[in-house]
């Protein structure tokens, strides 16, 4: 057990994966010698060799395409996309190929690829370093889409993803890399050192994909979220005194509907929250499912707390970001409805 921030936890997961399976390899822009712009792969090339961890040309579509070929050849590629905002050139290879190969080949071929990408705002990255594109991937059958909110989950889920025989989109909330973040940019940054979930086992362990985690049991309502907003949600409960049950989804596809529905059926009120743009975001899917499964239990409309239907603007980052205020207001509306 070692205290690790999320970067170190991810690094440790890849270290374990490379160590245990010679067919696992890592490729992406700047991931080799340099160890990645966020340092997630630092030291791995040196430890495992040039051909196990290497830099690629800047062509996200090409990276995913060659990784597909490698997967077909029996390897287990772990791809880094430098920012989730830059995944779009790879969308065709992901949607038309990666997600469909098992299906269209009648199960003959499959590609056990993991695509890691830092997502979300809060680092003044403006509209091209802040996006949360999970909603797009969740609409594509054949992809698993997951997003951890802390170092422990990050390592365990990344190992699950790498060992999974289906393609996994692995989103990393970059604002959480160095510490939990409660949504208030004016407070001094916290580190993972004081956080229980910063305690990360050294060796192999997994956190299963498809299991949500109740991070705060509560009675008043159910607040369903993932990624950075998990920490905002906890702070919002604290600040408002609202006794919400906070669920960290961790995995969007597969979705742990049991945990969600059991909670909402108990509390009768639900708020879903994500950083991505509102319209057609994954929050809409959550609302749709909740009202399908919990209609008779609901005492108020399910509220959505989201980023706005605008790009993530540089100067207005904190106006876009769904912080505690927006969350508390939504919880109040739900309680008062």
């Amino acid at each position, binding site marked *: 057990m070692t205290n690790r921030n999320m970067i170190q936890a991810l690094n440790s997961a890849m270290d374990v994966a490379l160590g245990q399976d010679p067919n696992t390899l890592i490729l992406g822009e700047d991931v080799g010698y340099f160890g990645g712009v966020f340092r997630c792969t630092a030291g791995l090339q040196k430890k495992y060799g040039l051909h196990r961890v290497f830099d690629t*040309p800047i062509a996200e579509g090409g990276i995913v395409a060659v990784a597909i*070929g490698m997967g*077909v050849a029996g*390897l287990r590629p772990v791809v880094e996309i430098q920012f989730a905002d830059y995944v779009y*050139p790879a969308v065709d290879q992901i949607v038309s190929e990666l997600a469909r190969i098992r299906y*269209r080949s009648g199960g003959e071929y499959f590609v056990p690829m993991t695509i890691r990408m830092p997502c979300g705002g809060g680092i003044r990255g403006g509209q091209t370093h802040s996006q949360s594109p999970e909603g797009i991937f969740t609409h594509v059958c*054949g992809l698993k889409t997951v997003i951890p909110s802390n170092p422990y989950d990050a390592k365990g889920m990344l190992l699950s993803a790498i060992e999974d*025989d289906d393609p996994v989109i692995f989103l990393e909330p970059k604002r959480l890399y160095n510490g939990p973040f409660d949504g208030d940019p004016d407070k001094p940054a916290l580190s993972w050192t004081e956080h229980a979930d910063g305690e990360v086992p050294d060796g192999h362990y997994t956190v299963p994909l498809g299991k949500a985690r109740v991070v705060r049991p509560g009675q008043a309502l159910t607040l369903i979220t993932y990624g950075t907003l998990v920490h905002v949600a906890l702070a919002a409960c604290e600040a408002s005194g609202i006794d919400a049950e906070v669920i960290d989804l961790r995995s969007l596809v597969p979705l742990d509907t049991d945990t969600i529905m059991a909670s909402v059926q108990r509390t009768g009120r639900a708020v879903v929250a994500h950083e991505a743009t509102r319209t057609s975001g994954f929050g809409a899917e959550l609302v749709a499912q909740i009202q399908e499964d919990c209609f008779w239990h609901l005492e108020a409309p399910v509220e959505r707390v989201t980023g706005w239907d605008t790009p993530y603007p540089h100067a207005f980052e904190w106006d876009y970001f769904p912080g505690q205020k927006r969350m508390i207001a939504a919880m109040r509306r739900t309680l008062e409805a």
Partner: protein
Amino acid sequence: METIPEQTRLHIPQPESRPGEQPDFSRIEVPHAGEAGRPDPLIDARQMPDLSRALIRVLNRENKAVGPWANGISADTLREGLKLMLTTRVYDDRLFRVQRQGKLSFYVKSTGEEAVSVAAAMALRSGDMLFPSYRQQGLFIARGHNLVDMMCHCLSNTRDAARGRQMPVMYTWKAGNIFTISGNLGTQLPQAVGWAMGAAYKNQDHIAAGWVGDGTTAEGDFHHALTFASVYQAPVILNVVNNQWAISSYQGVAGGEHATFAERGKGYGIPALRVDGNDFLAVHAATRWAAARARKLGGPTLIEHVTYRVEAHSTSDDPSGYRPMEEAQAWPLGDPIERLKAHLIEIGEWSEEQHRQMHRTIAEKMQAAYKEAETFGTLNDGPQLPRGTMFEDVFKQPLPHHIRQRAQLEEEHND
């Protein structure tokens, strides 16, 4: 409001001729067979003579194999090639007719392009991995795929390896080391590069080969394939089948007006061969050259096969709307089957009678195969795959919502 003059400064490429006009292939220079030199396959790319504007041809007008690319291929192999090309053509004709009878939703012929796939497959080893587009059925046939299986795929029936999920012609054949064909153009070429990188990573000496059409070279995937192949010196053969047309767009629209497709390789330091795609011996020799190079860590090769799409793009297409009817006849590089046959006859290894006999045998085999295939069902008739299987293979294991949806579908049909 500005008005745009008729006489625009924007260049819009146009083919030489349109319906009602005389076919015109004067832009296709046809050098003598044997003219192009053959460097050592392990030549340094920088020293490579420029074969990207040449046209590597082996069979001359007298149907003899000449020049440095004529590499002593045995008569048995040539006869085998002839048989496989003819099988491919008969297969195409058969399935085309089945489509016209309404039993297939769609079909794509490769008429006139059989050498491109058959000769290439024969020049490679069975452990080499192939990433074709939808017009290389010859690869499957040359690798010995069961015709019944191929037909069952096209019929989406109970014996379809793709389990009813793909349109006809989008075969998958893992046991034959041929990748599941994509309906999306170009995606498979960088995948072939990745597979080749994987083989190199694992220290195997298998190589990969991919195929795209002239039109498809415009996709970003083509550039990714060339870039990654060059950067990692992947053991891969990148084939461009320039059959002059991409549906209704002639090859100039894909950028063939100002450079050949083989020339694309130059920009990446990838050796490129431009080959007479209707010359079985030339395709075979070029593929062997590239395979030898790749297998010995010489890196990738780009091969442009100059050929002609004799038939419609697919059964959904009618080329009389955009090109002269007589264009196929005017095509200066002839027919690959006729040319190989003439060569075998010329060297005393074949006869018209043997050819007729072979054709008959193939036609009978095809007939029998189709009959057998139909016993496994067609899209509309006979045995059908259980509809619930459509929820399988989205993931390795169905997710809970797939199980729910499957039950819902069954219920719809129980009403």
